[in-house]
């Protein structure tokens, strides 16, 4: 491989208020390679790439792209220079059609005497979508008609359509089904074969090792190393990311059969037309119940039903001890059920509010003295729990929006610890979280189990289900297709069989 | 004019449209009742449309009254500027148009009105004289300093009264210490009055030029709260429900108002023109003066003679002002009647009718 540099970052710096997101980061990306970019949550991966794509302005350092000094004013000009990105967050705009989204900022190719020729635009979009096997998407429809995954795929098509020299994929795979992932990998491979370059950000190390040629590691906003794929294994990468040996312990190590203790929750014939079909389950004291399956198998909705957040379903969720049916969120919380949403920023945390407010919000019953809630109590209360989860923060008055993903997740969990919930529903609790925080969350789950709390763990990652759960239920098309007890030598394949 | 073909002949009842700001408020109700009384006396029809002083609504109200078959319309227009449009509608449809409570100040609009065949005139109060008389009333009480609270700059009525006051003050050597305009509600007026008293300890009087009673009430209250009743004298225009008590206790020193008969004269102007009593080619300006009260006794008289069971004009008197009943009646008689109306006038005409 002729090692021609396509993009060179030199001494890049970027700060957000008190956070040094990028601290003198320098590395080169070569033409025709797939470069993995890994690091813990908040290590600066997204920031580095948003500086490269003009979304954020760098504070210092320089960038050289194709041999020329490069300083994009915004995403559009980065696109024009030949760099495109699929971002972590959703980046399509509802209210515009699919074709308007695809060509946003590039309308001038479709202007006829100042008129936007929608026919032409739709046809071009259609052709493009078909190229990527997305025949079923009608480009003249509002993009709001489509699912998260379809929209990600549309974004993908849009990003590749610019024929970029450098294509950046920021943590997209977790949002995609296997099929979508295959398409993405295919595109990455094709681009590489055409002599273009790809930067691939993911927390899924095996995936990174499978597809990347070289891997760059960031830690705390600093460049650590760039390594050849062939010279490292998963543990090496982890060590580079975390900066020390990880303890041996990761998942649970006990494999005794869970002795059915008292029932705490009964789920009876839950049905949501077209989503869930006649689901019945029991949860016991001290049990970790895993629910797995493909993203759209209905497991996320099931979590919401149990939490009382879903309204249109038939069947019952009954809290066994008190023998009451759970019908709404407030009641669920009061009865000791906590729910950690998969969509942290949209459903779980008030971003522009302090850690303290977020933790205390569900705990007012315990903090109220008469009708008075004192400042001091709130402060010490929230400090206690954020410290217990080792949230990296300046103080509990810090806004959630200033925390990195992993720390946000910790606050999201801390809230329920503080509330003292007996039953926790964790929906993808480790999504997009680095190994260190993951380990902390697993450890916490074990501790809770020992204290007699019950956990429903909903996850798309089979390994963590296998590693953590006493019992795993697999859903397929909204119905239970598999139900296995904890055992030492369970394999992923066994579960996948139930899923598809 | 072409009065004969314009409807009076078609069916025998004369129909007069009234475009008014509203007819459920205190003043509007009085107008509504009195015009209905007059219409009964004359066997005429009257139709009211409320506009809320909104320009577009005023235009629409005239369009609608024309459509509903009125022979003439009297209007309290929202502004001078809307008149050309109203006149045009009336000209196009052959319907007479008179104003009440208003005059046309804008010379250009006036030209248009003068050249119209169907614009027949207006009734309004002499506002300069109102201000002047009340200013003089203050001078008589020995006041040396004053402050003015008024509503909009640019409002013809407010400006005229202001002019009258200034003239009286200049003649009598009264000094205007401060003024505050655009006061429409009670507490704004109270704030202004309070501020005046705080800033100028030598303030002896406050003029509230008008504004339908609210600003007056605020100023009275502020003066009272400061314990300055009588030391700071208040004059204003437009009678309020508590006026009698206010005059008796000295909270208010002098007041003009009671001019709600104004639309009646425009109504008669319109009626007589429709039935062919007046020459429709020109236009007429009917001036009337307000009723002045400066003591509880004055007010009692007003209440008795204007608001009692016998209206200021009785059925016979109204018929006497109508060409259909009195072929000798001329526009000169109507003008004289408008100019004459006052407490004394009614007391004289109705002496013996009221106990």
């Amino acid at each position, binding site marked *: 491989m002729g090692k021609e540099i396509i993009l060179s970052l030199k001494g890049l710096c970027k700060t957000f208020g008190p956070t040094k997101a990028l601290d003198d980061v320098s590395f080169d990306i070569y033409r025709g390679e797939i470069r993995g970019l890994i690091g813990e949550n908040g290590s600066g991966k997204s920031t580095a790439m948003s500086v490269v794509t003009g979304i954020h302005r760098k504070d210092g350092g320089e960038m050289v792209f194709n041999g020329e000094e490069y300083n994009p004013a915004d*995403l559009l000009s980065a696109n024009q220079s030949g760099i495109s990105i699929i971002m972590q967050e959703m980046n399509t705009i509802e*209210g*515009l059609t699919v074709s*308007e989204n695809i060509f*946003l*900022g590039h309308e001038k190719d479709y202007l006829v005497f100042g008129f*936007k020729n929608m026919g032409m635009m739709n046809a071009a979009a259609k052709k493009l979508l078909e190229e990527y096997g997305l025949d079923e998407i009608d480009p003249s429809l509002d993009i709001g008609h489509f699912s998260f995954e379809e929209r990600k795929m549309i974004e993908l098509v849009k990003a590749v359509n610019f024929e970029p020299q450098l294509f950046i994929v920021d943590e997209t795979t977790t949002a995609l089904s296997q099929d979508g992932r295959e398409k993405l990998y295919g595109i990455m491979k094709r681009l590489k074969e055409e002599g273009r370059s790809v930067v691939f950000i993911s927390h899924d190390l095996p995936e990174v090792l499978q597809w990347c040629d070289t891997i760059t590691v960031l830690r705390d906003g600093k460049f650590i190393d760039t390594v050849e794929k062939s010279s490292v294994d998963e543990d090496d990468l982890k060590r580079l990311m975390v900066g020390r040996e990880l303890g041996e312990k990761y998942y649970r190590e006990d494999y005794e059969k869970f002795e059915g203790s008292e029932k705490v929750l009964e789920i009876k014939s839950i049905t949501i037309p077209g989503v869930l079909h006649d689901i019945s389950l029991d949860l016991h004291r001290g049990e970790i119940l895993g629910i797995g399956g493909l993203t759209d198998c209905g497991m996320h909705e099931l979590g919401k039903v149990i939490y009382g957040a879903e309204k249109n379903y038939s069947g019952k969720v009954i809290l066994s001890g008190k023998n009451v049916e759970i019908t709404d969120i407030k009641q669920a919380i009061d009865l000791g059920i906590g729910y950690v949403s998969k969509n942290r920023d949209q459903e779980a945390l008030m971003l522009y509010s302090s850690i303290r407010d977020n933790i205390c919000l569900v705990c007012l019953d315990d903090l109220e003295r008469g009708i008075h809630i004192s400042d001091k109590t709130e402060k010490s209360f929230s400090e206690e729990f954020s410290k217990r989860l080792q949230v990296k923060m300046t103080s509990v008055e810090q806004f959630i929006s200033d925390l990195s993903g992993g720390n946000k997740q910790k606050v999201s969990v801390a809230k329920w610890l503080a509330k003292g919930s007996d039953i926790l529903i964790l929906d993808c609790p480790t999504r997009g979280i680095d190994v260190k925080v993951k380990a902390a969350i697993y450890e916490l789950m074990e501790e809770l189990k020992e204290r007699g709390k019950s956990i429903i763990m909903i996850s798309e990652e089979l390994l963590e289900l296998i590693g953590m759960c006493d019992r795993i239920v697999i859903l397929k098309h909204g119905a239970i297709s598999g139900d296995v007890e904890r055992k030492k030598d369970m394999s992923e394949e066994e579960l996948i069989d139930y899923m598809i | 004019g072409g009065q004969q073909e314009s409807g009076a002949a078609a069916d025998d009842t004369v129909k007069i449209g009234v475009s008014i700001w509203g007819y459920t408020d205190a003043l509007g109700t009085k107008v509504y009742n009195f015009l209905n009384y007059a219409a009964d006396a004359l066997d005429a029809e009257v*139709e009211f449309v409320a506009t809320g002083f909104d320009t577009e609504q005023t235009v*629409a109200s005239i369009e609608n009254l024309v459509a509903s078959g009125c022979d003439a319309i009297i209007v309290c227009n929202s502004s001078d500027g809307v008149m050309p449009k109203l006149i045009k509608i009336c000209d196009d449809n052959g319907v007479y148009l008179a104003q009440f409570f208003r005059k046309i100040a*804008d010379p250009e609009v006036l030209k248009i009105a003068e050249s119209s065949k169907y614009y027949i005139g207006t009734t309004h109060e002499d506002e300069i004289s109102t201000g002047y008389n009340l200013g003089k009333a203050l001078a008589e009480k020995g006041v040396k300093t004053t402050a003015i609270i008024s509503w909009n700059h640019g409002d013809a009525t407010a400006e005229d009264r202001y002019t009258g006051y200034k003239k009286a003050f200049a003649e009598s050597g009264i000094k205007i210490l401060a003024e505050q305009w655009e006061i429409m509600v009670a507490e704004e007026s109270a704030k202004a009055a309070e501020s005046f008293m705080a800033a100028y300890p030598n303030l002896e009087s406050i003029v509230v030029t008008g504004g339908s009673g609210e600003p007056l009430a605020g100023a009275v209250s502020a003066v009272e709260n400061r314990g300055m009743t009588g030391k700071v004298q208040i004059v204003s225009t437009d009678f309020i429900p508590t006026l009698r008590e206010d005059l008796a206790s000295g909270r208010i020193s002098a007041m003009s108002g009671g001019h709600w008969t104004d639309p009646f004269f425009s109504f008669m102007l319109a009626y007589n023109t429709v039935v062919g009593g007046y020459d429709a080619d020109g236009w007429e300006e009917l001036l009337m003066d307000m009723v002045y009260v400066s003591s509880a006794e004055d007010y009692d008289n007003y209440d008795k003679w204007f608001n009692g069971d016998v209206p200021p004009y009785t059925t016979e008197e109204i018929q006497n002002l109508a060409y259909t009943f009195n072929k000798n009646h001329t526009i000169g008689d109507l003008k004289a009647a408008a100019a004459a109306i006052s407490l004394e006038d009614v007391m004289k005409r109705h002496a013996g009718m009221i106990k």
Partner: protein
Amino acid sequence: MKELKYILLLICVPLAVYIVFSIMQPENFGSLNSILMLIQQCLLPSLAAFGFYFIITMGLFDFSIGANIVLSGIFGVMLSRSMGYAGLILGSLVCSAAIGFLNGIIYTRLRIPSIIVTVGLLMIYECFGKFLSSESVLSLDKSYRMLGSAPQNIIVSAAAMFVAIFLLKYSRIGTYIRAIGNNENIARNMGIKVDRYKVIGFLICGLFAGITAILTVSYSSSVAAQLRMSSMDRNFTPIMGCFVGLALKKYINPIIAIFIGEFTISLLINGLMTNGIDSTLQKVITGSFLLIIVSFTSYKNKARVVK
């Protein structure tokens, strides 16, 4: 077919209003002539609403439209005295564009909520109108009133409507404005100069207010300064129309929906007037009627641009 349902609604509601009043007042309501009059009457708020729609689509508000109409009208009438039609038209348009631009610039610079900016500025515009028109009422000379009557007013409005539809659906400006309305952050990430397009939105809104001003002074042949926020009253009908447009935008072209909405309002007001309903009560009934219509058609999801 959801579309069909809403299109039917848009046809049936005015029809129902028409029929009800025709039965109540067969003689005085609903002649062809008066329908024509109503169409002309509803042009004015419709035009203002078209412009306002560009703002409200972005989740912003402009309460200075009424003040803009008044000030631009005053400006136009004053210039017409020396420059005739050119003065009237250019005067109004330039003034209204300047106001729109100023709103936009101040909003984007100061970063205060648009409601507050425009309410604050409207007071300034109102006062400015007062200073300009030292006479209490400015009347437009008889020889320049052509645009106030049919068919000229209809032609101008139809042209403006066409421009609004074009800008909103078939131009880059419209696409960007819709994008900003749906998600400002993403739009910014996509390289759209959000602030610039917000200013453009205000500018468009201002210009439509200017066109409204021209037709308003031509229709009522005069204009007077309004003070103490009384110009706010003029915002209400356009805003209501906009909400009809917003509510139905998924199903039919919002500009057309606005026009039909405004027509229905005119129909209703006229019917109430013919039935001798007090003007205050008219507003109450109209207001309630619209609240109900909007709430029926309102498309209840998180995408609502205005809380």
